[in-house]
């Protein structure tokens, strides 16, 4: 099996500006456990040629654990809720909630994953919070400038033309 295509992008800025957006793949929410935030770990077939299955599944599973941690109903969230109720919820104006802290961690994680794993493969993960936590958007980029100059981009452009 040929190795996944390598793109000469050294940072996300170059990826966004120097390649053209080919398509977007959306990973939907998984509601089988209720309204808690979980994303489907089913691998989208459009990304078969771009990234190894296990990498994306690992990313989604890690994000699911982060969201479960944010929405966990345990001692800390009850304390926060009772304290907020006692102060007529004014404390929400002053304090960052546990959920917001975990969301910051998630942003950092997605940024790191994009830099290490997805940008070298010409992909970009969008933080679900920017899409209202409905979908996880995976932008698929094509290296417009080097069409024909490398084997990888001709393979992807051929693949997308067939579709």
């Amino acid at each position: 099996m040929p190795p996944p295509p390598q793109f000469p992008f050294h940072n996300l800025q170059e990826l966004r500006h120097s390649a053209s957006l080919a398509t977007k793949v959306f990973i939907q929410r998984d509601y089988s456990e209720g309204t808690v935030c979980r994303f489907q770990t089913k691998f989208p077939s459009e990304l078969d040629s771009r990234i190894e299955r296990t990498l994306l599944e690992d990313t989604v599973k890690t994000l699911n654990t982060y969201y479960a941690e944010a929405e966990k109903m345990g001692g800390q969230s009850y304390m926060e809720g009772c304290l907020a109720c006692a102060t007529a919820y004014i404390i929400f104006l002053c304090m960052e909630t546990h959920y917001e802290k975990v969301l910051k961690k998630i942003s950092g994680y997605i940024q790191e994953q994009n830099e290490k794993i997805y940008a070298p493969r010409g992909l970009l993960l969008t933080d679900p919070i920017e899409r209202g936590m409905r979908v996880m958007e995976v932008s698929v980029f094509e290296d417009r400038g080097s069409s024909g100059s490398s084997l990888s981009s001709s393979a992807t452009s051929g693949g997308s033309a067939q579709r």
Partner: protein
Amino acid sequence: MKNCEYQQIDARALGTPASSFQPCTEMKVPRLRRKWEVFPGKNRFYCDGRIILARQSGILPLTLGLIVVTSVLFFAFDCPFLVTHLTVCIPVIGGVLFLFVVISLLQTSLTDPGILPRALPDEAADIEKQIYTSGSSMYRPPPRTKEILINQQVVKLKYCFTCKMFRPPRTSHCSLCDNCVERFDHHCPWVGNCVGKRNYRFFYSFIVSLSFHTSFIFGCVVTHLTLRTYEVILLHQKESPARYPFHIICFFSIWSVLGLSGFHTYLVASNLTTNEDIKGSWSSKRGAEDSGNPYTYNSIFINCCATLCGPMPPSLIDRRGFLPPDDIPPVAAADLELSSFLAKNDTNMVGMPSSGHTS
């Protein structure tokens, strides 16, 4: 290579905004707009997006007016008498309850109830593609519902034509605010806002504290009138002019507010929303055995904790975020970058970042 370098310079000269060569007064940098300024729903925003209200404020001014006027009359007329005859704690308790009621009311009205942002065009197109390729018939549009399993219970998700997405479970579209709201309870005209996932706990504390407040005021008023009548009879004092109209309002509002508090306590304990209860989504229809509430934790205590003390989700609509600058058309920007990328590629095979490239 010389050609490419010539192209690179040309593209840069064309692409550079005129403001770098001319004084700033001629071509101003357009002000970055915040997302609340282009929000598609029927909402009003104040304080640069910090405060959100439904467009129709309903009878919120009336609610506030009734609460404030009744409380002021209580403090002005009943408290002096009761402080001298009973205890000084009465205005203190009344004051604390009054503050609690007003703060909860304002928080219910001015908080984002859990509005879901509308689907962007790419996402909407992807969903449409999935609907039309899932084996639908040619004669009529495919049914815009999706069935999923939640805790082994079949739940139907409906497609929202306004927001162009399948609504998550327990989400409903409010026609007054023109938004999909998560865990939609109802649109309350008294509060002038939808009651949903993010402000249900504020709403519940508002109605419970209002029940206590009106009961407290009513109790104090009855005590006052009783003591006053006693004094009139025993000491032949002049009877004070009655303030019956406002006390009658108090009397009638107590029963409605108490009733509402009791109803919502039942909803909280069984992890239901008003919307689901009214529609009878989970009641045993036609003796079906499997229609139970899939969201309940089967324990009153845990249901209450989950609804009222659970983690506070953030607002999804990002009112104060900035819109991306749309003064450079995306096609022209892409062409600029393409030409600089081409030049970069020809000068060196491994894409080393060029110094002037970063925007």
